[in-house]
């Protein structure tokens, strides 16, 4: 029940390579029998694969002897985990109250158009993923957008599109 019911999403297919599987298994083996290791394992595995698809989740669940539903619950709770491959640049638009009234909603529409993807989707060339967040805690700068680690405030639509373009 994650995600919207807006039909099929545009998801870029990506296979986990044998080398990546090897690294995943190593990470699991290093943390086995250590309590509280699920989140660090998920973080490290995501750093390697870029995302956490079902097959990877099942491998981790089995390796750490926890139920796959539990793993899935943790992944979907934290916004920094992703089920689908993300682009090289993750564009996050704030939908918190302050930003919303300053028009991030309209900005979102434009960005979608411009990038040709919906929220929680990734462009085919893997350059961008688009996401929304609730209040980034920078309401004074509303409307706010974060690209990767960089916060951009006091935006308008054109400025936002210009900024996004700078990310390769």
């Amino acid at each position, binding site marked *: 029940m994650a995600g919207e019911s807006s039909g099929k999403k545009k998801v870029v297919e990506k296979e986990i390579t044998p080398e990546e599987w090897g690294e995943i298994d190593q990470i699991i083996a290093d943390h086995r029998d250590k309590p509280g290791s699920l989140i660090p394992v998920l973080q490290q595995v995501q750093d390697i694969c870029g995302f956490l698809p079902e097959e990877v989740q099942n491998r981790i669940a089995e390796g750490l002897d926890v139920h796959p539903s539990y793993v*899935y619950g943790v992944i979907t709770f934290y*916004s920094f985990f992703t089920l689908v491959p993300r682009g090289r640049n993750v564009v996050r638009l704030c939908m918190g109250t302050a930003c919303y009234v300053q028009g991030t909603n309209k900005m979102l529409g434009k960005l979608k158009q411009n990038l040709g993807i919906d929220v929680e989707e990734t462009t085919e060339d893997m350059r961008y993923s688009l996401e929304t967040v609730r209040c980034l805690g920078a309401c004074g700068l509303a409307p706010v957008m974060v690209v990767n680690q960089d916060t951009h405030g006091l935006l308008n639509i054109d400025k936002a599109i210009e900024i996004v373009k700078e990310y390769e």
Partner: protein
Amino acid sequence: MLSLTIDEREVDVKEGATILEAAEAAGVYVPTFCYHKRLMPFGACRMCVVEVEQMKGRLVPSCSTPATNGMVIHTNTAEVRKARKTLLELLLVHHPLDCPVCDKGGECKLQDLVYEYELTENRFQDSKFGYPVDYYSPLIERNTNRCVLCGMCARVCDEVVGVAAISFVDRGFKTVIGTNFERVLNCEFCGECVNICPVGALTDKLFKYKARSWELKKVNTICSYCSTGCTLTLGIKGNSIYRIIGDDTIGVNKGSLCAKGRFGYQYITSPERMNSPLIKNEAGELVRVTWEEALERAAKGFTEVKEKRGAEHIGGICSDRLTNEEVYLFQKFMRAALGTNNIDHAGGFSYSGLLKGFKSSLGYAANDITLNDVRCADVIFVVRSNLSETHPVIGYQVNMAVKRDESQLIVASDKTIKLNKLAAVSLTHKPGTEIVLLNGLIQAIISENLYDKELVSSSTEGFEQLKAKTARYGFDYVEKITGIKEDKIRETARLLSQNKKVCILVSAGLGIISDDEKLAQAVANLAMLTGMVGRKGSGIGFLGEKCNSQGTLDMGALPHLLPGFEEVSDEKARNAFEEAWKTSIPSQPGQSALEMFEGAEKGSINALYLVGENPVVSYPDTAQTIKALESLDFLVVQDLFLTPTAKCADVVLPAASFAEKSGTYTNFERRVQKLNCGLNKLEGVKTDLEIFGELSLKMGYEMNTSTPDEVMKEIGTLVPLYTEVNYSRLGEEGIVWGSPNGGKETTLYGEKLSKVKARFIPVEVDEAMLEPDKDYPLLLLVGSVLFHSGSLSTKSPELDQVGPGGWVAMSMEDARDYQLTDGQPVFVRSKRGEIALKVKINKKQTKGTVFIPYHFESQPVNTLTSKDLRPTFVEIRKG
């Protein structure tokens, strides 16, 4: 102690109590959604808000706010009511108003509170959720639209059951209770989540659209599967069970149940149940006859064998699922009406083996431990016991003890089991080497001077022999045989000897070689050495497979013991029974079940009376079993179903199920608990109790007891351990026999073993027995699985649905070596026979072993095994 005032009432509670607990103590009702006393406080729903004068103006959640001294609390002010009402309004914004078709209707917390708060309209409006309903999971239906996000289901599944198969998924407004990728449930199907859900978001599919909850008559009775002895609440309408739930205010289980207990009742109304006695006609066919004819024929058959060959040529074996009263009458019938001590029961293979060892070491063939002791233990040592499958509710206690109270768990097992993930120390040893491991621990404890010297010298015998005999079990030797390394043995030795409340749990029925008696003695040695017996809160728990494994022993369904563990060879004991029964009893012990089967083939046993027993399926070496049955002159089988064993009989007598009778079962704690009859008997059947009485009368011996109550009175006069057990005093807690204070305490052995004669009995095993044959390289493990118990549960289609048979589990490594894939058909062959199964690759299976459950008629694993009590080795080839 804290004193506080709640709604003008003064109340004292202990330090650390929450406001809600204080309110409960004061008898003040506070509504809740996310609080449950079996779970850790969660504090998410805010339904339980109250006003505290000292926190002027603020409403605090009572379930998660600690009470403090002098607090003045109001639980029902206008302010509080308004807050609760708003909360309900918000919940109702998205909640579908489908109460008329919701199975929770009538017992739904949301419905009740909306009624209580007179919510007739809603200030807020929004669209309903429209999440898809999971109609596809077995047994449980999940309708997220009705969920109030109290999280109790996910918490009970994790905190109690230890599975976490459902979880909060997603975040913020989108949060739901779900599974990974919205898959169907893949779990233990215990139904604990359904039982705890306050609304109709999780419902019991077997109950769907069958009845409204208020139409059901509630009858509390005892589960007829395993020896935990959980209290079930049957929901009855007409003459059928519509559902089974757990009531968290009663029973040893306090409302928890497993899949067998909750969903495994449909065998009672199975169309396959027999509803008429049968006798074999001239042509060798079983034909329906009246009870009169059947009982005549049974009496005549036994009388003929008795007159022609003598009573010692007759034997009787009963199931450990009979009630105490029935077992008592059964052995009385065998001993008094027929005149033989050839009496045994199925548990005779394992549980009584375990307890025989126990009796020789500690004087009683019974445990001195309670379920609550397990829950409160500092250290739990599980030996040869996959108890999360065989005794799930005991498994829940272990899970809670470890997760909530940081008990240390040690697991000694020949494969990885569910409990390993909770274990502080995992001792995954080579199959069949438990005794070597225990001897290694004993050696370590003695050589490191960790043992309880005071207890050993004051209350036990045989320490020097033990010391001498176990001296050779040094770390290197033990590692060579068991595969367990020195550091783990040292750590276990320390944990066992340096903690106060220590429990050892051992399950019956998982032995590869029949070393149960020795295993019991080895465990007893360890327990005496560390002083964990004869100390309150510590002790050994042998877990019998069936609901009345303990009571069946207590009631003397054994060749050498009368009721109350009196030896038949003891003249004085025998005389007491002879006098009461007005007859004589043979002074020689009779034959065990296995001896009877051997004797049948050789001609020294000519008639058998099998009650609730299905040896063709459940005894080792099926070919021999059938041959033995065919050699008999006369066979009577009494059961619910026309089992493969019943098909061999001359007379078949249809019996009643546990829900159709009253009586008592004795659980693993020695707690005698009352079964309350919920259903009228299926037409055409009689209870086992009735059958024994009538058959005995036909044989010319009158028992004079026709109700369970009367039988229990007779037991009370002859069995000192049961004098306290009186129907009028058997409340919901039952009575633990042999303990003071009306059964409230369990100190059978006495403090520091003062009431028993404790002896160390050194034991060893023939390690060569475990060497595989080159033609048969794999060791066969036979046992039970989560969804089944005995062969009865296989007649409940819903358990078969989640736990079907037809497979052999093997390790990944072996599967690779044999080039087998999951689901591939294979033949499993031993020296004795061959069966066709499908491979189930199980990463937890140990290399070199295969596992086959024994419950299923359709996969007769016992065609492979032998009655010589040696391990069975098999080979596997592609089918």
